[in-house]
């Protein structure tokens, strides 16, 4: 037990250190928000001095009705995300001056100083060529020079590093007891690296030189691809597919699972909720089951479902059915329990039978709650299907991104995440629209 606390404490400290490290960036971002706000108000005041009701309020802080989402802020916020994304990926969509400093690419030289066993010293120059990924340039031509140390050529790909066996062409060798004592005139040893302006030179344990060109501030493609390459991937994957499966197929499979799983969950969950809301016996029978199953995250059921039903459609749909079932049952139950007793009394004293009360009072009264539950259930189902596909699937948008991640196709991973977000948002919008259209009396009782 004590060991666990010690370990977790260590983790916590590591985390806190990273958080502290991130603080300047957070402060920078908040500064940007405030700066944009300041500029926006200045510009707006210049353009027009509006005198609407809200602008004339003296009390706006704490007045919830005075807080209206500022469209300009939303637009700036989203544009800024893309600008930051583009700036740190060297996007071609942005003018060059907005780019963060990129990795060093091109030719440069540094010198090293060798000390032979007999104390003789000599300098040699290394001609370095740093090229971008995918290029295969020829090594720079090196002229033969006199002395015990000969000049070298080094070809490195940007973001990578390379060992330089400097003694390969020199007259003195590491075996012969020669060693490097300085780079560009600065002393170097195993613990002290030398910054050469376009990169970093380190001395390895075996005495060779390790050169790492400077990476700049931009992200490498496999960490974060530029927006346009994600877009290009979207086009190419939607036309040609990825690993022989088209994007439409991936998305349709995921949506199919969600819709079928949700529909089954609702078809069973809603009557179950009604039964629990209307009968003591059913309430008693199912309460323990529902109350226990509800807090179990559907993701925790994935291994069991795979054991029982395999990784095919059946397993996925069982999982989504279970994800939707409890939410819908609880929604329907509270919809029934939430019916105002005066409405039921009124209906009885207007001569309605039990059946008519169910049909004309309880069901319509519970619809708003059921819609709320359906919105939640759809969200949970969408999240669950992606997670289930990440674990095991042949097709589906989750499968697509996990396969892409194994090949470091980060652009596909990003594209998949954005699509998942857009679809999730679309589902929620659709449900909200349906709710507004089908249960206009929601919240109006």
């Amino acid at each position, binding site marked *: 037990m004590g060991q666990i606390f010690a370990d977790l404490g260590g983790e916590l400290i590591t985390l806190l250190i990273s958080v502290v490290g991130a603080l300047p960036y957070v402060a920078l971002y908040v500064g940007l928000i405030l700066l944009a706000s300041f500029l926006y108000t200045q510009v707006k005041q210049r353009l027009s001095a509006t005198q609407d009701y809200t602008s004339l309020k003296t009390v706006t802080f704490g007045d919830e009705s005075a807080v209206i989402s500022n469209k300009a802020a939303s637009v700036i916020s989203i544009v800024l995300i893309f600008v930051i994304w583009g700036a740190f990926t060297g996007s071609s969509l942005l003018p060059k001056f907005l780019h963060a400093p990129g990795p060093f690419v091109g030719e440069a030289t540094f010198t090293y100083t060798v000390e032979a066993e007999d104390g003789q010293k000599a300098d040699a120059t290394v001609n370095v060529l740093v090229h971008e990924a995918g290029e295969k340039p020829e090594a720079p031509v090196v002229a033969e020079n006199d002395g015990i140390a000969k000049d070298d050529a080094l070809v490195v790909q940007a973001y990578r590093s390379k060992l330089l066996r400097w003694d390969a062409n020199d007259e003195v060798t590491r075996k012969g007891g020669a060693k490097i004592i300085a780079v560009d005139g600065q002393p170097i040893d195993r613990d002290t690296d030398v910054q050469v302006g376009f990169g970093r030179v380190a001395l390895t344990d075996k005495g060779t030189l390790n050169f790492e060109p400077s990476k700049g501030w931009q992200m490498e493609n496999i960490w974060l691809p530029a927006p346009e390459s994600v877009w290009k991937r979207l086009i190419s994957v939607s036309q040609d597919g990825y690993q022989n499966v088209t994007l439409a197929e991936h998305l349709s499979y995921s949506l199919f699972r969600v819709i079928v799983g949700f529909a089954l969950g609702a078809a069973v969950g809603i009557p179950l909720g009604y039964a629990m809301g209307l009968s003591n016996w059913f309430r008693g029978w199912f309460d323990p089951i529902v109350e226990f199953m509800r807090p179990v995250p559907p993701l925790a059921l994935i291994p069991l479902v795979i054991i029982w039903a395999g990784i095919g459609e059946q397993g996925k749909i069982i999982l989504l059915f279970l994800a939707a079932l409890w939410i819908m049952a609880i929604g329907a139950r509270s919809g029934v329990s939430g019916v105002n007793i005066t409405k039921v009394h*009124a209906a009885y*004293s*207007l*001569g*309605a039978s039990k059946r008519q009360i169910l049909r*004309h*009072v309880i069901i*319509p009264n519970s619809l708003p709650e059921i819609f709320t539950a359906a919105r939640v259930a759809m969200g949970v189902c969408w999240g669950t299907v992606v997670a289930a596909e990440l674990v095991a699937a042949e097709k589906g948008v989750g499968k697509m991104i996990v396969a892409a991640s194994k090949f470091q196709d980060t652009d596909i991973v990003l594209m998949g995440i954005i699509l998942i977000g857009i679809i999730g948002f679309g589902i929620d919008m659709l449900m909200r629209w349906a709710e507004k259209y089908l249960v206009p009396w929601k919240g*109006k*009782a």
Partner: protein
Amino acid sequence: MRRHSDAQCQIGTMSVTSEKDTSAEQGLSIENLSMRFDLPNGSHVQALKDVSLDLKQGELLSVLGPSGCGKTTLLNIVAGFLAPTEGRIVLNGHQVFGPDAERGMVFQQGALFEWMSVRDNVRFGPDMKGMPKSESAEIVDHLLDVVGLQDFKEKMVYELSGGMQQRVALARCLANDPDVILMDEPLGALDALTRERMQSLVLKLWKETGKTIILITHSVDEALLLGERLLVMAPRPGRIHKEYRLPFADMGVGADLREVKKHPDYAPTREEILNMIWNMEEEIMGRTEESA
């Protein structure tokens, strides 16, 4: 102001039991009603004790009393929502065992079906009986005319103001043509002006339809103006404290209710009832302080 010629209109109290008419004529009789609620902690509350009352067809009874005197319990028993521990309710010769369309109810608020239009709310009763739409449409049109909501027929009920909603509730109750209308503070949630207009409407509907009405209210003025008979109930146990027969309801039909209040008997009666309820409230307060 319309003077009422009926000599019976003098104010006075009378023994409730002496009026009891055992012949099975049309009317509502409440016979020796007692209601006891057992509480989980073993004690019990005597909500009503030995309440008896007879109402002839077409009488309007208003019920007043401090909170906890069992007025709403009484109404719920008459409506059939509660079964009394002792006694029974007899309507037109048959005993009441549960809610039925013959006893309509108008609630304070929240009883309209907000998923239905005004029209669908009003024709709910006829619909449940299976009356053809063509037939119920006539009833609905007539009643919406009476309550002045013809133009709002297609509106959803949540689009209406509180006063309009209560008019819909009245129309909905009348559409079912019940023998008895039970009103549980139907005007309690309305503002003073709307309330006055609604009081006139209740009187008008009462006279026009000849329904037996039991009206529960917290307002002494409302009880005086609307109650042909007025019952003051006392709490712990809930029982009938005093009954009045009043001329004001008859005077108020089609007249200005503010004029009715100028009747020489109005203010003294009002004062007497207010004192009565005040004393009961004082007594309750005293008792709670003692026990505390």
